[in-house]
């Protein structure tokens, strides 16, 4: 009996160390664009992700060559997502470029992807022919869409294809109520929390966000958004920051947001 007691005391004493073991994370919002290759060669990029303790990372790049370089180096780590941009700075012109669908189709024949994105599309532009073609492509190849845009754009995509799977970048920078309303409406909608901090400032999750996470435990994931090469060195600090507010949630919920939801979406997209 006494040994048992001693043992459980030991366990108790051990707990802090166990808890300090960093939670694995999947970062759903990473870009590796052409201007990153010189000062951040693929080995450095992969090292930065591993140093941050990431299990996997959704990577999309302008052009896609960047993603392929990383995927070749670390297929266990990189979840390739196909960005419809040839170079950075095409965030609004791509929708008017009718060669985009052909380019995407050719790449999808050649390579493996879990999704198409991250692309920018707002409001009625989601019904432009290029966007419609992208929605069809995603359905054909059984991949998700990583969409940076407003709620209206998301709704228009689902109107085109109710079976589409959409990862809503930055949760649309929308208010929690609006995010909740959209998630309630579409079962195949996920939301990343990249580049926003009100849900976890100071390592505490405010009650509004806690309520939202509780209501939709399977739909949120985290992301850094490396929109410049330098920001790869923010993946680590961002992971630390993320772990702090995740620790404010029940462990099971925290795990889902940390990596399980992203893992599920990646597995679906990759046909794993």
């Amino acid at each position, binding site marked *: 009996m006494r040994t048992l007691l001693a043992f459980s005391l030991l366990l108790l004493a051990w707990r802090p160390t166990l808890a300090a073991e960093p939670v694995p994370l999947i970062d759903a919002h990473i870009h590796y664009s052409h201007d990153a290759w010189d*000062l951040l060669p693929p080995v450095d990029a992969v090292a930065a992700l591993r140093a941050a303790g990431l299990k996997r990372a959704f990577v999309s790049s*302008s052009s896609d060559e960047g993603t392929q370089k990383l995927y070749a180096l670390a297929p266990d780590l990189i979840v390739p997502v196909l960005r419809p941009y040839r*170079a*950075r*700075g095409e965030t609004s012109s791509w929708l008017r470029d009718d060669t985009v669908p052909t380019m995407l189709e050719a790449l999808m024949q050649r390579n493996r992807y879990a999704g198409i994105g991250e692309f920018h599309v707002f409001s009625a532009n989601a019904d432009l022919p290029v966007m419609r073609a992208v929605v069809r492509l995603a359905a054909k190849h059984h991949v998700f869409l990583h969409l940076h845009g407003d709620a209206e754009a998301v709704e228009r995509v689902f109107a085109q294809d109710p079976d589409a799977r959409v990862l809503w970048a930055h949760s649309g920078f929308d208010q929690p109520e609006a995010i909740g309303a959209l998630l309630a409406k579409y079962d195949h909608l996920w939301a990343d929390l990249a*580049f926003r901090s009100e849900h976890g*400032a100071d390592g505490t999750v405010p009650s509004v966000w806690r309520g939202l996470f509780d209501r939709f435990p399977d739909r949120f994931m985290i992301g850094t958004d490396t929109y410049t090469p330098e920001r790869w060195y923010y993946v680590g*600090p961002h992971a630390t920051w993320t772990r702090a507010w995740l620790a404010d949630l029940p462990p099971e919920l925290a795990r889902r947001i940390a990596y399980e939801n992203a893992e599920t979406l990646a597995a679906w997209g990759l046909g794993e």
Partner: protein
Amino acid sequence: MIRLLILLGLLWPASTSAEVAVLGLDDETVEAILSHGSWPPEPVRDPSNRVSGDPAAIRLGAALFDDTRLSTDQRFACSSCHRPDYGFAEPKARSEGRTLLTRNTPSLWNVGGQRWFGWDGGNDNLWAQSRRPILAPDEMASDAGHVARLIRQDAGLAACYRAAFGRAAAEVPADDVLVDVAKALATWQETLVSPPTPFDRFRDALAAGELDSAAVYPEAARRGAALFVGRARCAFCHVGPRFSSGEFHDVGMPYFLERGVVDPGRHGGLAALKASQLTRLGPWSDDAGGVTGFATRYVRPRHADFGAFRVPSLRGVAETAPYMHAGSLTTLAEVIEHYNDPPLDRLHTDGERVIRPLGLTDREKADLLAFLRSLSPRQPSPPPPVPCGGG
């Protein structure tokens, strides 16, 4: 009564600005231009520094600023990098201490009264910022013991110290002497207020409705001023009489230092602030209740902090090339080109919405340049150093 005063206050600029339309500036532009004055501001003492404004401390600070003995091997004085003949800045992209440093040396004109110090705002007060280079291994590489010995052993400095702090350095622990030295340095730097400029005379003439004197300001600079506060959107960040909000932005400048190493900017500054004992809320501050600790108490960490740098003041900017946190732009013309055609792909779509391509004509670029040049006094005159007794 108060209401009457408010009425009068608003009536006054309203009536002048209506007339000023003659100078080609509409009401809104005039109001915006007026917001960049008046200059110089009322001198304010720093409550976190008990010797702020004290003449004896100013004398000690002036002497120390120029004294290479602060560094262990006598290689650097503050003035080695903050050159009085160069606007207290340096004609180098990145400063050189014992190694190549990571940032450009900022001008020290008007450094008193800022909210944050350093390109990353790693300090919330001038004395902490002044202690930094003394201890930095890449700069003066000194320590409290060395500094205290210097003050105690040099008769002139010892006398100045006693006059400023009312006690003998020999009776004060070395760590305290070091902070006192930093406070004296701060006190002297607070006197570095740049004189009024051609822009200030223009602005004051507008304020007073004296159109003849306002018309002395060259037409190109006048058009440049209108651009600055208007279509070019510069005044969203370069606000007020200092031409700086003192806050942190990412205007699209690269911040790699070398392969594998970046300058984290404000993100690192906040980490340093958090770790520092020398803040306005800390034990070394003389502002007992931390009344002036607003910024440090409420500051909010943001993801955008990574790679963001403090908006520099533009007073005297023509005198302190090269530009930006790492001195990567060599001329003001290059800075204007940068803003005219900013690297949009380096800016997050939900980041700096104020930075957008400007489509300036050559004449407009020249106008903006003429305006920026008019922010320098005709003769920037650093105050002469006053030696401490036998120092």
